[in-house]
């Protein structure tokens, strides 16, 4: 009996969803805001990647709120799991020779790749969030390879706090100069070069460091749960 009600519910749900989605035909979206942004984004921000222009310039406040959500999640996980730095008592086995060697080779590559993604966020696909995730993975790989060298919670907390402060300070400087919070304010430079798009790369750098520190903190507290 329950099986048939399940099938009935799921079929009805998919029919309703299909009826809602079908009018939205692929390739014929009205693009009411998108056309305006496409026309003016290069002039306004100087970023070659228009998604970056939307994320950091047009919807900068949303990104700040998103950072707040991520911070809340990381803090809540710290409270739920408890940050007990008792790694020497719970001696988990080492990961073995293969993973340790691979971690040594991969760590600098991952670090360079993460910084490349973060610093080229205004030119190529990528940016602070993606690069921050790679950064956290690079540092967590060392922890995986050798459980002795753990991610220091105090260091990551300091980096996170400084990066978050830098993001807000960049916004406040824009407020002092132009009267609008979180508007791009430095010289726009030449389109497509590394030092262009004003303050957007600085914002992405702060964001990438903050996301990387937060995710590293989160991964290490998930890994350090007492068995």
């Amino acid at each position: 009996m329950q099986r048939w009600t399940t099938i009935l519910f799921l079929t009805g749900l998919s029919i309703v969803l299909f009826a809602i989605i079908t009018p939205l035909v692929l390739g014929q979206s009205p693009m009411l805001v998108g056309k305006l942004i496409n026309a003016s984004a290069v002039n306004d921000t100087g970023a070659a990647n228009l998604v970056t222009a939307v994320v950091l310039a047009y919807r900068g406040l949303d990104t700040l709120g998103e950072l707040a959500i991520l911070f809340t999640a990381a803090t809540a996980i710290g409270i739920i799991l408890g940050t007990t730095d008792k790694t020497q008592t719970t001696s988990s086995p080492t990961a073995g020779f293969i993973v340790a060697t691979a971690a040594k080779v991969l760590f600098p590559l991952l670090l360079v790749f993460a910084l490349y993604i973060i610093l080229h966020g205004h030119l190529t696909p990528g940016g602070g969030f993606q690069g921050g995730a790679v950064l956290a993975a690079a540092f967590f790989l060392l922890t995986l390879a050798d459980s002795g060298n753990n991610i220091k919670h105090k260091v990551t907390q300091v980096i996170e706090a400084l990066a978050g402060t830098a993001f807000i300070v960049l916004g406040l400087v824009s407020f002092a100069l132009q009267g609008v919070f979180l508007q791009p304010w430095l010289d726009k430079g030449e389109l497509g070069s590394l030092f262009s798009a004003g303050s957007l790369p600085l914002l992405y750098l702060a964001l990438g460091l903050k996301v990387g520190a937060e995710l590293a903190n989160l991964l290490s507290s998930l890994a350090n749960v007492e068995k």
Partner: protein
Amino acid sequence: MMIWDDIFLEVDFWINIVSIALIVIGIYGIVFSQHLLRMVFGLGLLEAGVNILLVKAGYQKEAIAPIVTQASDTMMSNILAATAQMVDPVPQAMVLTAIVIAAGVQALALSLVIRIYKKYGTLDSHVLFLAMERDRHLSLNQKD
């Protein structure tokens, strides 16, 4: 041109099918499974389906990715002609936001699952319900 339109409609249909299948499987996992970890995975599938729909909503016919690649072309009119053919960047930025928040939500859910497993030793929702009811009655009796 006619054939291209037909292919386009076909692609549209299959994107709809895939995203709706992901959403329905995710809701099935959240609502009908007894294992808490499967509920978390269902949440992930649901988010993936919704993200596919959002990216699809910004697509324009014969459009390119929203990145200016002709960097040497400093002529403003050339850049404007290039950006006029680009897809909508707003849904892509929304999906970027959604993915990051989904990561936070899933990490929080996983940590809750770990905590529950440490306290009760099981992840079956029916067994957990009985165990939690028993605990509640015990604490009520202690208060009296």
